[in-house]
């Protein structure tokens, strides 16, 4: 069988599995639709959280990004895992004890204010839409590259699948599909990584192979020889690395689709435990990714540097037709010069290729390539579904039930939740087909905003009984305005100054969420110290969520 046949077979089987689960796990009440009835085991929730969290970006783009960034790629590795420590220690157990369905509901109740709840809803919707558009785009791209259908068809197929299990099953359907999707994506990620580790270093475990056989020294040598920076040496200023890492960590802990997963387990101690499982499952991929990055970089340099173009392997010309590899024979000698200097370099490579083409570059069997497609789709669909649920609950539970029509019946609310989920799928699909120009740049937005809005508001709401509505609302608004303003300034208003000399204290827009969080905390404390303390019932509520029973 050729690559395409294998891909159709594996992707088809995985989709059949997801649909099967969707039919088996229909939600009958809002309790099931929002939090899967609150009866998910910590292990299953850990897997579901891992799939929920690891998106198309983690699966497809991250290793490629790292392979071009070298040591500085650690900002993603630490940033997207370290947040789980914050989540497990500072948020998950208390929010589980609080026992409501959504993050804005906590913000609204803790700060006894519809305004606070609405600020939280707006942030949740903005973060989720930004993110989900990227996932649908990822689905479309995987379809178009591996299955030869156009991006539109790919997005529509993806929409139908997500629609089936997210709209019918709600959180219940999503949870159990995510468990299956985690298994698919981690298998798809590990198989080629192990193959390549054995090929390059004779080590089965990529995390060990990465350090053996002098691989990193060789890679440093190859890189500097061609005029690139040494792989294991950092290029970014420490303060920027520090701030980006912190913003990604805090942002991770503040993302509503991740937090809401901890509402689905039965007990407080299950919430703590499932955060541990979640990070364990995430760490399997996140400790493999830097190994894949180094392997792929070594393989790539060894294969293409100094290669005669007419003898290029099949994958090279295949990816050239997609425009993701570009070869420009500047000195017309028919040989690929791949160097770190703009004048002599003849090759440009899209970073996404590093994972997608890795099996082909390493000459792995066709079924492995098919696996990559199924894994990429699992990663994108699982994250999209989690985000769609946040969008739908924000509308039906926070907006309609919380503010517009509190007396609504459970059945009616469930109906609205389904309609909202359906509407969100269609809107996400539209953005997937016609991506607004801002999507790529707004990943920084999503994390920066989560870091500067939710995270401090929730943490202060748990750890300070004194924090009041005035403080939290003004803090969230100040944090968001500051962060959004800084990012907008450097991406739209003054892009020519978007470089380390133009940034404040050398902090890039990617890392500014860290400062935004500090702005939020400072403003919150100042304002709350000049306004009355919250009512006694609120203080008692805080005491109640601090203990498991």
């Amino acid at each position, binding site marked *: 069988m050729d690559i395409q046949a294998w891909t159709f077979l594996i992707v088809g089987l995985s989709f059949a599995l997801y649909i099967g689960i969707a039919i088996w796990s229909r939600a009958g009440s809002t309790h099931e639709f929002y939090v899967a009835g609150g009866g998910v085991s910590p292990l299953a929730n850990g897997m579901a959280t891992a799939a929920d969290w690891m998106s198309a970006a983690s699966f497809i783009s991250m290793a490629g990004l*790292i392979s071009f960034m070298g*040591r500085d*790629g*650690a900002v993603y*590795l*630490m940033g997207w*895992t*370290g947040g*789980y*420590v914050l989540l*497990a*220690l*500072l948020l998950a*157990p208390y929010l589980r004890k609080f026992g409501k369905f959504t993050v804005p509901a906590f913000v609204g109740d803790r700060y006894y204010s519809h305004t606070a709840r609405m600020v939280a809803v707006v942030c949740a919707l903005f973060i989720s839409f930004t993110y989900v558009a990227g996932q649908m785009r990822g689905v479309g791209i995987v379809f178009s590259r591996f299955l030869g259908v156009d991006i539109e068809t790919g997005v529509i197929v993806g929409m139908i699948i997500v629609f089936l299990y997210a709209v019918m099953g709600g959180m219940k359907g999503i949870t159990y599909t995510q468990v299956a999707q985690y298994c698919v994506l981690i298998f798809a990620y590990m198989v080629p990584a192990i193959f390549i580790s054995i090929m390059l270093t004779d080590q089965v475990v990529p*995390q*060990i192979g*990465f*350090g*053996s*056989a*002098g*691989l*990193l020294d060789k890679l440093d040598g190859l890189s500097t020889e061609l005029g690139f920076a040494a792989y*294991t040496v*950092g290029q970014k200023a*420490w303060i920027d*690395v*520090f701030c980006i*890492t*912190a913003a990604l*960590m805090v942002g991770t802990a503040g993302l509503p689709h991740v937090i809401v997963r901890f509402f689905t387990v039965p*007990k*407080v*101690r299950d919430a*703590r*435990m499932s*955060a*541990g499982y979640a*990070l*364990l499952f995430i*760490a399997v991929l*996140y*400790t493999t990714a*830097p190994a894949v990055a180094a392997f792929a970089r070594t393989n790539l340099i060894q294969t293409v540097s100094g290669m005669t173009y007419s003898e290029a392997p099949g994958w090279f010309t295949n990816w050239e037709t997609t425009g993701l590899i570009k070869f420009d024979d500047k000195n017309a000698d028919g040989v690929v010069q791949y160097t770190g200097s703009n004048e002599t370099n003849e090759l440009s490579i899209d970073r996404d290729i590093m994972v997608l083409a890795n099996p082909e570059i390493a000459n792995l069997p066709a079924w492995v390539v098919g696996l990559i497609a199924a894994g990429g789709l699992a990663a994108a669909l699982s994250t999209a579904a989690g985000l769609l649920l946040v969008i739908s609950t924000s509308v039906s539970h926070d907006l309609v039930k919380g503010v517009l029509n509190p007396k609504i019946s459970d059945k009616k609310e469930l109906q609205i939740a389904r309609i909202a989920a359906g509407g969100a799928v269609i809107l996400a699909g539209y953005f997937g087909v016609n991506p607004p120009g801002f999507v790529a740049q707004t990943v920084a937005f999503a994390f920066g905003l989560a870091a500067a809005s939710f995270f401090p508001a929730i943490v202060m709401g748990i750890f300070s009984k004194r924090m009041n509505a005035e403080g939290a609302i003004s803090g969230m608004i100040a944090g968001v305005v500051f962060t959004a303003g800084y990012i907008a300034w450097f991406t739209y208003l003054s892009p020519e100054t978007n470089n380390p000399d133009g940034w404040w204290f050398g902090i890039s827009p990617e890392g500014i969420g860290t400062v935004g969080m500090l702005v939020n905390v400072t403003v919150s404390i100042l304002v709350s110290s000049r306004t009355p303390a919250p009512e006694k019932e609120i203080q008692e509520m805080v*005491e109640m969520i*601090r*203990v*498991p*029973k």
Partner: protein
Amino acid sequence: MQEKQVQATAYWRKNLLYLSILLGIWFLVSFGAGILFVDWLDQYQFFGFKLGFWFAQQGSIYAFVILIFVYVGLMNRLDREFDLREE
């Protein structure tokens, strides 16, 4: 009721103590070893890696996983000690 209050406060204090120790380690392995002292640590070799590089791309993540499970263990013990374990 009073007794319960006192218990809850003691439980919370202990929790805060655990949090500050664990988050201190969290900061040291990531922001410390992986960012602030990474170049200095790179002079040491560790299983074929430069030590700072290993912390930045591997070690910090392992430490995060361990930290959460240690926290889970400590808190489960604390829940029992204060009779706050949910049935």
